[in-house]
């Protein structure tokens, strides 16, 4: 049984048909068998849920815990390692650090910048265009949620060999999807990567970065505070797309045939997202919200439990109020749907009318679905019956945590053994292989599909090493960004490899003339259940953290993508590192390349 099939049977009480499973029923019938294993929960995880609730979960609660405790949402394998980033020395520039939707950095003159990179690897393999498009859509909403206007995107892409047949299926769709969504949002694409390696043939990597700008006082947080405040769901209607996509797709290994489970694909609607952006910015400017969260993986389950967990009270939701695209959806499906282009806001009762008016102006559907309560429970009702009654922190913050076994890959010594070319013929062959690699080829076929000009503030973009944007037209304050990864180094030595990646992104930002300020990262690895992969992951995190300490940079956030492998074979460990820098005056940026005859050439460094 696939997870999606398992879900459509949810909502009816176990062992019975057609009777909604409610909290009352779960209390009455505590011992009914439940399909937790099909939903990806381990025996001990299920036992913990029962312990937390003091009874069996309802089927809707089971659905909610299973997505929220999935690898993708809970970071259960990576959290113990990511703590290293939190231990870095405090940076004065850091206004909001890890733990929020995206980190926020002070860039001076009262401006702050927020940026983050996120993966959409598995969805892009299943449906390249929509997978990549919705990847851009998701990261843009993360940035918007911080109160910022999104101002640019970047994309880091990896595929199988350039001449492999499946690359011809995946690559054009991914590029068109990144472009289609970003262009339609009016966000310039200011850089990225495109690399090829056999290890990505069955598991391409699509990492998207978004950067946004705000005034310090405009910062928004994902928090439900204030008893009686309303919970407003706004944006697209909820449909049956991507149900369980997060737990199913991102926390599962593909075999040679691709994913065994195919949740319905999410289709992006960039036009609706553009309207959401404009509506949100107008709502922020008018001071109409006290907290806001985007809906991404795990949909309403995630947004409500995270908002409530971050606040001091509880929350009561009436699920019947959620506007649906498909009236046959069951409550668990509504809770887990990953329909795109939705947001959830906490609004004081006397501001609801003004909030709805802004949404109406932008043709954005908005609905009050509940309110903040005193007490400490998240409750959700359906057709007048209680189907969820949980402590929200146990869903959103207190998921499982694993110290997975680790071991240094057995083949590493052999890989590291130095075998320089022994003859000039070998050297020639190696040199030809390097210069003829598609990795080094002109990327304009890709970058011409991206709008680099929109918003009129793009100072440098492709083919420059760093993208540079003007932030303020009068002072010429600006920022630089670079996104880099080198998985071959990381495969040879994940600790040093991560540092080399960091150094590359750092240099790219520095040579544009900017002062590097902060780091984001997307860590793409194989299955955490493989001790060798877990070792690579831990080493890469340790390397990156040590590198950041050396350079005096904070890690402001990022994303972990695990289970990137085909069958038993993991991708090369692929940390993708983004560095943000600030330009006091963008007119003094330094482009790449020789500019004029007669200039001197200097080599810096060792």
């Amino acid at each position, binding site marked *: 049984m696939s997870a999606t099939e398992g879900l459509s049977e949810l909502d009816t009480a176990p062992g019975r048909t057609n009777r909604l499973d409610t909290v009352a029923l779960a209390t009455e019938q505590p011992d009914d068998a439940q399909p937790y294993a099909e939903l990806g929960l381990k025996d001990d995880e299920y036992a913990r849920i029962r312990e937390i609730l003091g009874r069996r979960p309802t089927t809707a609660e089971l659905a909610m815990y299973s997505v929220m405790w999935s690898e993708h949402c809970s970071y259960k394998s990576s959290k113990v390692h990511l703590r290293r980033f939190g231990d870095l020395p405090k940076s004065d520039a850091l206004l909001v650090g890890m733990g929020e939707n995206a980190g926020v950095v002070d860039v001076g003159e009262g401006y702050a910048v927020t940026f983050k990179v996120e993966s959409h690897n598995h969805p892009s393999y299943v449906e390249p265009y929509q997978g990549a498009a919705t990847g851009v859509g998701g990261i843009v909403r993360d940035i918007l949620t911080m109160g910022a206007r999104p101002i640019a995107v970047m994309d880091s892409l990896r595929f199988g060999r350039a001449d492999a047949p499946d690359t011809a299926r995946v690559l054009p769709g991914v590029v*068109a999807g990144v*472009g*289609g969504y970003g*262009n*339609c*949002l*009016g966000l310039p694409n200011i850089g990225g990567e495109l690399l090829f390696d056999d290890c990505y043939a069955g598991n391409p990597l699509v990492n998207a970065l978004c950067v946004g700008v705000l005034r310090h006082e405009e910062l928004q947080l994902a928090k439900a505070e204030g008893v009686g405040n309303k919970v407003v769901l706004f944006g697209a209607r909820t449909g049956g797309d991507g149900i369980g996509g997060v737990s199913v797709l991102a926390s599962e290994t593909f075999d040679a045939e691709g994913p065994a489970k195919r949740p319905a694909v999410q289709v992006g*609607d*960039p*036009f*609706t997202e*553009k*309207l959401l952006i404009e509506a949100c910015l107008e709502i922020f400017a008018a001071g109409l919200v006290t907290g806001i969260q985007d809906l991404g993986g795990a949909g309403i389950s995630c947004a409500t439990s995270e908002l409530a967990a971050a606040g001091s009270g509880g929350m009561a939701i009436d699920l019947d109020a959620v506007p649906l695209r498909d009236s046959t959806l069951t409550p668990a499906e509504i809770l887990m749907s990953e329909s795109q282009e939705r947001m959830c806001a906490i609004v004081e009762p006397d501001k609801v009318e003004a909030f709805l008016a802004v949404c109406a102006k*932008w*043709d954005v559907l908005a609905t009050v679905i509940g309110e903040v309560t005193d007490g400490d429970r998240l409750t959700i009702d359906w057709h007048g019956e209680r189907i969820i009654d949980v402590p929200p922190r146990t869903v959103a913050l207190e998921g499982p945590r694993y110290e997975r076994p680790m071991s240094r890959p057995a083949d590493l010594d052999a890989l590291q053994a130095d075998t320089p070319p022994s003859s000039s013929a070998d050297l020639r062959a190696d040199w030809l292989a390097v210069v003829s690699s598609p990795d080094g080829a002109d990327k304009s076929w890709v*970058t*011409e*599909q*991206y*709008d*680099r*000009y*929109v*918003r*009129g*503030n*793009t*100072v440098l973009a492709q083919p420059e090493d760093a993208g540079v944007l*003007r932030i303020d*037209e009068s002072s010429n304050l600006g920022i630089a960004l670079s996104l880099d990864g080198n998985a071959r180094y990381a495969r040879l030595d994940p600790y040093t490899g991560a540092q080399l990646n960091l150094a590359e992104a750092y240099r790219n930002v520095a040579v544009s003339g900017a002062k590097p300020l902060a780091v984001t990262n997307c860590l793409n690895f194989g299955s955490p259940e493989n001790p060798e992969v877990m070792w690579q992951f831990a080493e890469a995190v340790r390397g990156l953290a040590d590198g950041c300490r050396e350079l005096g940079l904070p890690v402001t956030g990022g994303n972990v993508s695990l289970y990137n492998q085909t069958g038993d074979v993991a991708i090369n460990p692929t940390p993708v590192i983004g560095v943000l820098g600030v330009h006091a005056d*963008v*007119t003094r940026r330094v482009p790449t390349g020789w500019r004029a005859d007669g200039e001197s050439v200097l080599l810096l460094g060792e």
Partner: protein
Amino acid sequence: MRIGVITFPGSLDDVDAARAVRLAGGEPVALWHADHDLKDVDAVVLPGGFSYGDYLRAGAIAARSPLMADVVAAARGGLPVLGICNGFQVLCEAGLLPGALTRNGHLHFRNRDQGLLVERADTAWTSSFEQGQRIVVPVKNGEGRYVAAPAELDRLEGEGRVVVRYVDGNPNGSSRDIAGVTSADGRVVGLMPHPEHAVEELTGPSVDGLGFFTSVLSALVVAA
């Protein structure tokens, strides 16, 4: 001089168009698609973007918005109107300009710095140029291939209605390399390239685009 810039849902280059108006010395005035209010502007710019997501056909839904009825009426009375990219698509869909813009021949969105030949330097929007001048302005579109029936194209050529033509390569397969056309009276101009992205050394490939905005300001001064 007050130059209106219309924002439709999904307009993207409205901020850029307003900046270009300002840099040219005009006063940009924000206009909203749903209002029946042209706010007494002296000219109107329809900016680039993806109005209504370009779903259905590029520009089709925006062309039927309330404000467009006012724009069509005012344009028939001589109000200068410039449609850039999506704005050009809207003007064709609204019947103010002939022809239609369709999916690029190579089926990709394309963004590049594009050479253009100015063929008409006597419209409300091109008087700052010399006839025959070559300029460089970015193009960026997925549905920029200008088409019309062959007889219609012959008629337009005969009447000198082609304002700018692509040179050094046709980015989208447009018929006869047409990049922009004008109404019979030279007051309404539509083009696929983006002059508003070529107004500052810092951010554009040239400052050639400024000429479109200075043209209308001087046309208005002459008229006043």
